[in-house]
């Protein structure tokens, strides 16, 4: 007697069993098996590529929190990748090689920048907000360029990855991969709890109808600011991971076109869905990788493709499954 199917039918909500969930589960399964593939084929490149995907997916998840759920279209999110990365790099250069110091500092400094930039930018909305977040991110870029001690425009090679006092040896690429994977899943779970909490509903309500939110008594500014800070902090963590992954940081990390890349990932994956940014990140980076193998001028294809997506696709890739779920 096989009780297993019965068990599944009773305990998993029917709403979970649809093409979208299946697709997401497939993507996650593939991601989980990448190191196995790399070990079997002896090809480390796949591991490198997919580690980068995981890290940028975390950044995309953080952007989706403010953009997809909160409606705050920040065109300067890559700045926090840079700030987190530079925190790790600068601390390493000054002799603080422990991850227990570097990573919390990366998160804290990113949160602080997000607090200041958010406090100023959130006074505006719409296209002003887009331009202002863009400008502030570019400002951070220029500041980084001016930091001669830490490589200036050429960047800084980070000799060692963060050390965790022997508890975790992230020099091992496979271990690092699974750490990033775990952090990605953790980020998605964190976002899922946030967006359905009281706080999350205020954020989503603000996206849906800010005027109404104020009319019923919500001081929306402070909630948006806190959301902005959380997203910045999470992206700072991604920055710390990125610095460890490439053992290198440079201002190029936060050039404004990188912010554009992050936005594309979030939009492709479907705004305001939990796993959308993950799918978007994986898709975009795979596309980029595949195209660069075919042609030297991948921009000639990606550019118009983005334009077509903007014109024709509502709801992004996830939206393809969800139908008219979200506009």
């Amino acid at each position: 007697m096989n009780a297993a199917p019965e068990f599944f039918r009773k305990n998993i909500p029917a709403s979970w069993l649809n093409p979208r969930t299946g697709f997401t589960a497939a993507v996650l399964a593939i991601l989980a098996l990448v190191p196995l593939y790399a070990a079997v084929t002896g090809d480390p490149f796949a591991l490198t590529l997919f580690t980068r995907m995981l890290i940028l997916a975390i950044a995309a998840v953080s952007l989706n929190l403010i953009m997809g759920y909160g409606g705050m279209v920040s065109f300067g999110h890559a700045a926090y990748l840079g700030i987190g990365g530079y925190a790790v790099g600068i601390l390493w250069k000054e002799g603080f090689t422990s991850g227990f110091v570097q990573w919390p500092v990366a998160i804290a400094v990113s949160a602080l920048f997000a607090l200041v930039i958010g406090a100023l930018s959130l006074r505006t909305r719409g296209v002003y907000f887009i331009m202002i977040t863009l400008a502030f991110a570019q400002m951070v870029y220029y500041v980084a360029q001016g930091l001669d001690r830490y490589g200036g425009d050429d960047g800084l090679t980070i000799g060692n990855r963060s050390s965790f006092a022997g508890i975790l040896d992230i020099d091992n690429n496979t271990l690092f991969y699974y750490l990033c994977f775990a952090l990605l899943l953790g980020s998605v779970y964190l976002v899922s709890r946030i967006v359905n909490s009281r706080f999350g509903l205020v954020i989503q309500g603000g996206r849906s109808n800010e005027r109404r939110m104020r009319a019923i008594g919500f001081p929306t500014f402070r909630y948006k600011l806190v959301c902005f800070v959380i997203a910045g902090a999470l992206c700072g963590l991604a920055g710390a991971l990125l610095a460890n992954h490439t053992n290198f940081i440079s201002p190029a990390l936060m050039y404004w076109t990188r912010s554009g890349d992050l936005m594309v990932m979030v939009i492709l994956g479907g705004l305001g869905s939990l796993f959308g940014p993950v799918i978007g990140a994986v898709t975009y980076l795979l596309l980029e990788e595949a195209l660069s193998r075919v042609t030297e001028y991948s921009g000639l294809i990606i550019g118009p493709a983005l334009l077509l997506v903007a014109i024709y696709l509502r709801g992004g890739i996830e939206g393809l499954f969800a139908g008219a779920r979200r506009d």
Partner: protein
Amino acid sequence: MLYFIEQCLNGVQLGMLLFLLAAGLTLIFGIMDLVNLAHGSLYMLGAYFAATFAGMTGSFVFGAILALIATAAAGMVLEVIAIRPLYGRSHLDHVLGTFGLLLFFNELVRLIWGPAGMTLSLPSEMLSAVQIVPGIYYPIYRLVIILVTLAVAALLYILVMRTRLGMLIRAGASNREMVGALGVNIKLLYTLVFGLGATLAGFAGLMQAPILTVQIGMGENILILAFVVIVIGGIGSIRGAFVASIIVGLIDTLGRAFLPDLLHAVLSTNAALTLAPALSSMSIYMLMAAVLVIRPEGLFPAASK
């Protein structure tokens, strides 16, 4: 003191170039409600066209004229093919779409002209200094930039304030549907406005080419400055763009010129050396931050829809 005046003139010159870009951006946003990240690409095309045509004809002026025509044409073709489907969409769609265009143009330029960039040379007399006021010398070409762009600004003012097209532009900026309901050919109007913005951008690009740069991605950096100008000046307002351009141009130039010395006077050499380049590039962002705190809608917000 002389150095100060020279830097002020440089600041005005930068401001005028910014104005050309910002005016186009703010017009396109004010009338078509379109965020255009590819505006910098038109700036870049203007420079590349000018360098190419000047090389072919052997004359800077001919090259410039041909480049203007080419950029205007490119702008209008772009509008019809790629920009029209974006009207009425959310700003996020605009950002995504025009970002794609930006990537496309960078790659296209790299394909056609190669990755190395180009140079555009002037007849040597243009670069020599002339005495504008007893004791103060300034390069002729930079003066030309200031005067020519001032003339363009004046023409733009006349166009917007005194002609029928300008009236349609102003009406469209405050009430799009009405203008359409009045039977005006909105599509044509939009194409013309976009073409005008493209021409202004291309003009800025070719004017600065001899003294600054002709390379891939040159549009991005100045585009951000143009955004800052628009935020400070108020979206949709050409007057605001003009005032803000001059302010931003002056602050950026003077900041880079004098802030390092100021810092040296106040801080230790090491600290000043580390901070100076970073802080001087930050000056306009601090200005923008200040404006945001005091007047989030900008200095001259145009009538809201």
